[in-house]
């Protein structure tokens, strides 16, 4: 890619990333949440990969990491939900943390936690799909 594209990508990626995180952590207060924010975070990574080279070996290593973090974050979300079996009214997906004051950033019990892990999961999953397509294309060309 040309210098202009690289420079703009460098400047803009941080902001996109921060915006994604903002959407994720404010999921219980404003529109959006884990899925939307996760997609934006994945967009930041995808922009970086598109602007700066694509070394197949590095991409493969990256893909292993993303698929691993995808599985782990889903497992953590499932454990958070399963913990509801043992706490409070003892039902699945029970909201067992203190709910706090409406409108605060730290409120709504377990919902922000689910949002964060779903954000990680969605970002990792989208990135995995993107990298898989890219690696497939590289392998075809070789």
């Amino acid at each position: 890619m040309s210098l202009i594209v690289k420079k703009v990508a460098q400047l803009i990626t941080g902001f996109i990333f921060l915006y994604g995180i903002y959407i994720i952590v404010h999921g219980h207060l404003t529109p959006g949440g884990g899925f939307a924010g996760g997609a934006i975070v994945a967009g930041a990574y995808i922009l970086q990969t598109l602007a700066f080279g694509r070394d197949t070996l590095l991409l493969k290593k990256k893909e292993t990491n993303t698929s691993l973090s995808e599985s782990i974050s889903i497992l953590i979300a499932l454990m958070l939900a399963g913990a509801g079996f043992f706490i409070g009214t003892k039902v699945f997906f029970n909201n067992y943390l203190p709910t706090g004051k409406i409108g605060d950033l730290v409120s709504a019990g377990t919902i922000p936690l689910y949002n964060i892990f779903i954000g990680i999961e969605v970002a990792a999953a989208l990135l995995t799909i993107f990298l898989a397509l890219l690696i497939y294309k590289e392998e075809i060309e070789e």
Partner: protein
Amino acid sequence: MNSLIPLFIIIPLATAFIIPVIGKLTNYFAKTITPVMLLILCFFSISLLFCSKQESYIVGGWQPVDDIPIGIYLVLDGFSKLILCIISIIGFLVAFYSISYISKYTSENNFYALFCLMIAGMNGVVLSGDLFNMFVFLEISVIASYALVAFGVGKNELEASFKYQVLGNIASFLILFSIALLYWQTKTLNIADISDVLQTHDDSVFLTFTQILLITGFGLKAAIIPFHAWLPDAHSSAPSPVSAMLSGVLIKAIGVYVLIRLFFNMFEFTYEIAVVITVLGTLSMIIGSVLAINQWDIKRLLAYSSISQIGYIILGFGIGMMVLSKGGKEGVAVLAISGSLFHMVNHSVFKGLLFLNAGAIEYRTNTRDMNQLGGLAENMPITSTSSLGASMSISGIPPFNGFFSKLIIIIAAVQAKFYLLAFLAVMVSIITLAYFLKFQKSVFYGKNKNFRDIKEVPFTMSFSMIILVILCLGLSVLAIPSVREVVFDQAVNSLINLDEYLNLVIKY
């Protein structure tokens, strides 16, 4: 409320995501954990089947406000218990069979992860008491099955998977559209609540439109005849354990089950809808079997025969619906519906077994073409015997289970005075016998041309086949009326007594 029903969804889902993490370290993890997990679910579901407790579970503890349900409901009644049993038992045997079969493919971990995901989706569909969640779980299981059909990554597999995806997505679109229409009209998504609202609702044009959309959508998923185009390709190209799962369980759990559940427990079906369902069932019964005669690919023959057998199941439910909507004798309707449920159980057993046999043949000979095979009975005694049992069972030879379930459906048809349907059911059974005799003759008997020195399949594969053929014989016990009442009466009751299902969910 300390019920453990959500475990049916949590355990397979957790297994599906643990496999890619720990499976990276050791190759044996995925092979061990999947059958063990399904064995646990097996015991759990069988213990549920024999206890008479029916219950509904509110996820997250969101209690109803003014008797209007607001949370996500999981409903466990007789019908869902039966399907859960089928899913776990066939799932366990197929997973055990896969240990040897899948080892010839690369990336085994992906196979087991997708397999668990498919199980989780089907369990979710069967348990969910809420239309939108049902749709979400349905998509989980179908998307996993798209990937599983394409698992061989050859030309045929990819083409079949693509065709399956296109038709599957059309079906999902129609289903989502009808869910949206129902939500627009009734302002709720809970099945029992929708049913409650629809009782005071008299917009019959809207209702008919939604019902037709649902029949088309779930007809595509269940491969009833005008919507069957994807099934022969998808079921014959998938790896054999997956075909056994798709044909034996998936089309029932996400096609027939949901169709029957919605038409019995959500809508008050009219006579016209009952006629439509019966006609569709009869058509797929006849055309499926006629198309199967001329197939020379083993798995394509089995796939067409699946369409035909699904026709029997739908026909039984259709007869029950026609009798009920005309206000006929309830006993006849009960007989037809329990015959259908019985045939559903039987079909998953013998069709699963036949696909596993086809897989065993392909595993040793690397071909599915009947013209090249022949005389394998000497070399593969276990495969040959078990497939003979399954063939006799599917074509309705007396000591096997298929005979009794077809007999019950035919008796119900005669009692309801649908003599033509009874005659057609008998005829189709004879055609079925014809093409299974062809299958037996050209694969296991006759002259062995090309494969003289092949061996029997490994232990895990033959174990699953032996268990299934024993089940083929053993399930005949269910034909005895007193045993049948224990297993099927709960399911039939929760289907034909609308109030029972409503009481279970919205009015404690």
